[in-house]
Structure formats: structure tokens, C-alpha cells
């Protein structure tokens, strides 16, 4: 029963006992079991990509009125495997004049930066890498490594398109971190901790109820950080012919691809974890294996929204993109953090003063936060609408200017320098 309800802890204990039985030192046993755990978790992360690629390609095909991959395996489910073999045996073409070290480092960084997030992502109550007490900050920090990879790739490729892609990455991907970090402050305030698993434990009521605005901001800005459509300015095939990855081939290109798909799934998982209760659900506390199921179901539903956004929305222009970031999301996030802090303190104060029960206090908290968030959205979008309203009145029904011949004869033409040439 213990194995069925909580396999990871069971296997971990069995392994520890086995190694201790061999007469190894306890410290060494700890290192070995952790290394195996890290290996399995990283493997899971990478193997997920095989699944998400086929998920996305099938959906993409269906929405564009195609079948999607349908040749290899049942319903084309094994299509990714020959693709992997193909990309594995392709030649590496290094452009002349490329800066060798950053050029080869960039694909590694873009995968490592995403994979490292999985070290703190709780998959179930007992199935998680580790629960460090600065988890949220750590996620932001390692997320930036992937962006560093993109910028390095663009800079080192010795190609002007790639360099343009890197510049756009600086303007877009990096500056979208500001609203993302601000939105991450809200669950930290609500949960009173930065550990990711502790934050999930704190969500007796999902944080989406308390902070819908912060959840929306986090979702949008982390989408922009991944750099997929509608925010795919940094690769923009039709403008700068795939931007930073233009000079990459073979598995080096494949790694950027893997990094992007894994990142897209990881932000869905993070949104599910931080705002939708992660592995929380009926029975998940007693049976961690159920938590695993809840976690993947929630992540997959959010990932579906991510894919649908990618399919449905056209690419933004860079000025629209930066306006969205600096003039919409950042002020909104600042206001949301302030509002959450004030409302939370006031509600907790009154709940303590009137000695409300825990259910009544939670209800009061939820309704106060929801009301505050709704007010904030209404006021903010009122302001945005007012500022972006078209100033000129409609042209319909007014006399339109008609072309009339000039009254006076035109002045003699000035001799242009071109006609003066012999």
C-alpha cells in the first residue's frame, strides 16, 4: 500500500537502506540518493518534451485544418523519435568568424536554465526535488540563465540577423521580467513563504481566487519570456529569419527547440503550482500519487491555453510589445502588489478583531481580494481606454475634400541637379 500511494518515498527509503546495508557512510548515501533523484527528475523533464512536441503538433494541425503528423506509430504518436534521430545525425555547421566558446555554450545554457527550474517544482506532496527557502527567487534567477543563452547565441553567431534577435531579446525577454517578478510577490505575500512546496501547502484556497490580476500578469509575462508567438519577436521568421538561432544546425539547433518547448510547459506548470493549487486536490495529502495526477492535469490544461494563444494570435510589433510591458503590465503589477498587501493586512486585522472563525475569515479574505482586484481592473482599463481613445471624430457624413485644379499656373520648374548632368 505504501508503494502504491507514495512510490518515490518508498523507493528512496529502500535505496537508502540498501546502500547503508552495504556499509557506505550515511553522508555518501545521501549524496548518491540525491544524485539519482536529480537524474530521474531531469530525465522526466527532458522526456516530457517528446510528449509536448507531439501534443502541440497534433493540436496545431487540427486547428489549421490538417491532420498533423500521422504516419509513424498509432495516430503518428511516435513521430518525434525519428525526428530526434534525424537531428542527432545532422552536421554541425559553424559559421566563419563565430565566437567559438559562447557559440557552443549558448544551446547548453538555454536547456540548463529551464531544466534547473524542475529542481524546485513540486510534482506531488512527497515528489519534488527540494524545497529551498528562496524557491521563488531561485526560479527567477535560473530562468534568466536561459535568456543569457539566447543573447550569447545572437552575439556569437557573427550574423546580423542573429544580432538583431539578441537585441530584441534584451528589449523584450529581459524587460518582461519586471512584471513577472512583481506578480510573483503576490503569492509570496499571501503564503508568507518563498519555498515553492510550502506555497502549495499554503493554498487551502487557490491563490487565483485571491489574486486573479497577478495570475494573469504572471501568465502573460512568462509567455513573453519564453519568446513564443504572439511574443516571438526574437525569432520572427518573416522579419529576421529565425533571429538568434539562424546559424545553428544539428543538435545545437535542436537544443534551442527543446529549451523552448520545455520552457513553455514549465511556465504552465509554474502557473498551476503558484496560482492553481499545484498538486492540491481531493485525497492528494494522503495519497501523493494522486497529487502527481492533479499536477499534470492542471499543467496540461494551462499548456493547452498556451498553445491556443500561440496558434490564434498574430505577432506583436516591438513598440506594442514594449508598451504592453512598461505601460500596462508593470503599473498594473505595482498596483496589484500594493493593493494585495493593504487588503490582506486590513482583512487579517479585522478578522482578528472580530474573532471570526477560519471559514468566515477565508470568505471575507476572498471576497475582499476579489472586489479589490475587480475594482483595480475596472479603474485601470478605464484609464487605458481613455488614454488610447482615438481623438479625431469619425469622417462619416462630413463633406470630403475634392481634388480641384490649381487656380494659378505652376511656377517655372527649378532645374534639378539630375537634369543638369550632361
Amino acid at each position: 500500500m505504501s508503494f502504491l500511494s507514495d512510490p518515490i518515498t518508498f523507493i528512496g527509503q529502500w535505496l537508502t537502506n540498501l546502500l547503508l546495508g552495504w556499509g557506505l557512510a550515511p553522508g555518501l548515501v545521501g549524496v548518491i540518493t540525491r544524485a539519482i533523484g536529480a537524474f530521474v527528475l531531469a530525465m522526466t523533464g527532458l522526456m516530457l518534451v517528446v510528449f509536448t512536441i507531439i501534443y502541440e503538433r497534433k493540436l496545431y494541425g487540427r486547428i489549421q485544418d490538417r491532420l498533423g503528423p500521422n504516419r509513424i506509430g498509432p495516430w503518428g504518436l511516435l513521430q518525434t523519435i525519428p525526428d530526434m534521430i534525424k537531428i542527432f545525425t545532422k552536421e554541425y555547421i559553424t559559421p566563419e568568424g563565430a565566437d567559438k566558446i559562447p557559440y557552443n555554450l549558448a544551446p547548453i545554457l538555454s536547456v540548463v536554465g529551464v531544466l534547473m527550474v524542475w529542481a524546485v517544482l513540486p510534482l506531488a506532496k512527497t515528489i519534488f526535488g527540494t524545497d529551498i527557502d528562496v524557491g521563488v527567487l531561485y526560479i527567477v534567477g535560473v530562468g534568466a540563465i536561459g535568456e543569457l543563452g539566447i543573447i550569447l547565441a545572437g552575439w556569437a553567431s557573427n550574423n546580423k540577423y542573429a544580432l538583431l534577435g539578441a537585441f530584441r531579446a534584451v528589449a523584450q525577454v529581459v524587460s518582461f521580467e519586471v512584471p513577472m517578478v512583481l506578480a510573483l510577490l503576490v503569492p509570496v505575500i499571501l503564503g508568507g513563504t518563498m519555498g515553492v512546496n510550502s506555497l502549495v501547502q499554503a493554498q487551502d484556497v487557490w491563490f487565483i481566487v485571491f489574486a486573479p490580476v497577478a495570475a494573469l500578469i504572471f501568465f502573460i509575462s512568462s509567455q513573453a519570456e519564453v519568446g513564443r508567438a504572439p511574443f516571438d519577436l526574437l525569432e520572427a521568421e518573416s522579419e529576421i529569419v529565425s533571429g538568434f538561432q539562424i546559424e545553428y544546425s544539428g543538435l545545437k539547433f535542436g537544443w534551442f527547440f527543446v529549451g523552448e518547448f520545455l520552457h513553455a510547459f514549465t511556465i504552465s506548470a509554474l502557473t498551476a503550482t503558484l496560482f492553481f493549487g499545484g498538486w492540491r486536490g481531493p485525497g492528494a495529502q494522503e495519497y501523493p500519487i494522486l497529487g502527481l495526477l492533479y499536477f499534470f492535469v492542471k499543467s496540461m490544461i494551462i499548456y493547452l491555453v498556451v498553445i491556443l494563444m500561440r496558434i490564434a494570435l498574430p505577432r506583436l510589433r516591438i513598440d506594442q510589445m514594449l508598451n504592453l510591458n512598461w505601460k500596462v503590465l508593470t503599473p498594473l503589477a505595482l498596483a496589484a502588489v500594493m493593493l494585495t498587501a493593504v487588503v490582506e493586512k486590513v482583512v487579517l486585522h479585522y478578522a482578528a478583531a472580530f474573532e471570526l472563525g477560519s471559514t468566515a475569515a477565508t470568505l471575507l479574505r476572498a471576497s475582499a481580494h476579489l472586489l479589490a482586484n475587480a475594482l483595480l481592473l475596472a479603474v485601470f482599463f478605464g484609464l487605458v481606454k481613455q488614454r488610447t481613445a482615438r481623438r479625431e471624430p469619425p469622417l462619416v457624413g462630413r463633406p470630403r475634400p475634392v481634388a480641384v485644379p490649381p487656380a494659378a499656373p505652376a511656377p517655372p520648374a527649378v532645374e534639378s541637379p539630375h537634369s543638369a548632368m550632361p
Partner: protein
Amino acid sequence: MQTDWLYIGLFLIVSVIFAGVPLLIAGLLSPRKPNPIKSSTYECGIETVGETWVQFKAQYYVFALTFLIFDVELVFLFPWAVAFDQLNLFGVVSGVAFIFILFAELLAAWRKGLLEWV
């Protein structure tokens, strides 16, 4: 506490191995037939002119700088958010005042025209 960071270290090593070793293996397996045309810079078929690392639009730099200002100050807000339960009203108000200063900075940058793409 230390074992947590030990795990992070191990995870870093494992993920670098996962990312790096397949690249090496693929490098050994894949053919290697470079020629000058193949390894020339790709620019949609046109030969490239001049060097790549040219002067660029200063606007990108301005945005990076604005980002830096905000990011450094946001880090100070995390301890405040973690200790939120233990804060009294004064602590909350001073945190909110700090965010107001950030807001004022954003408005100042906005008025200066730093946030316009020109």
C-alpha cells in the same frame, strides 16, 4: 538547509551533463564536411557586407538600463513579502511607500520619453 543546496548543485551538474553530453556524441556521429560556401554567414543568399558587430540602436540599451533599475529594487521587496505575517501596519505602509517610489520612477521614465520606441 545545506542538503537542499547540495541537491541544487547536483541538479546543476546533472543538467549540464544532460545538455552537454548529447551535443558531444552528436558531434562525433555527424558528418563533418565544411567548405567555404557552406560556412559563410547566411544572409538570405546575399553576401554579407562589413563586420557584424556594428553600432546599434541605443534604444535597446535604454530599455536594458531601465530594466536594471527596476530589477535591483524589486529584490528588496522579497524579504518584505516573506515577513508579511509578522509586520505591523507601519511595516506594511513603509513597504507600500517603497512601491510608490518605484511607481514614481516609472512615471519619471515615462515622462522623459524613455519608454517610447522611436
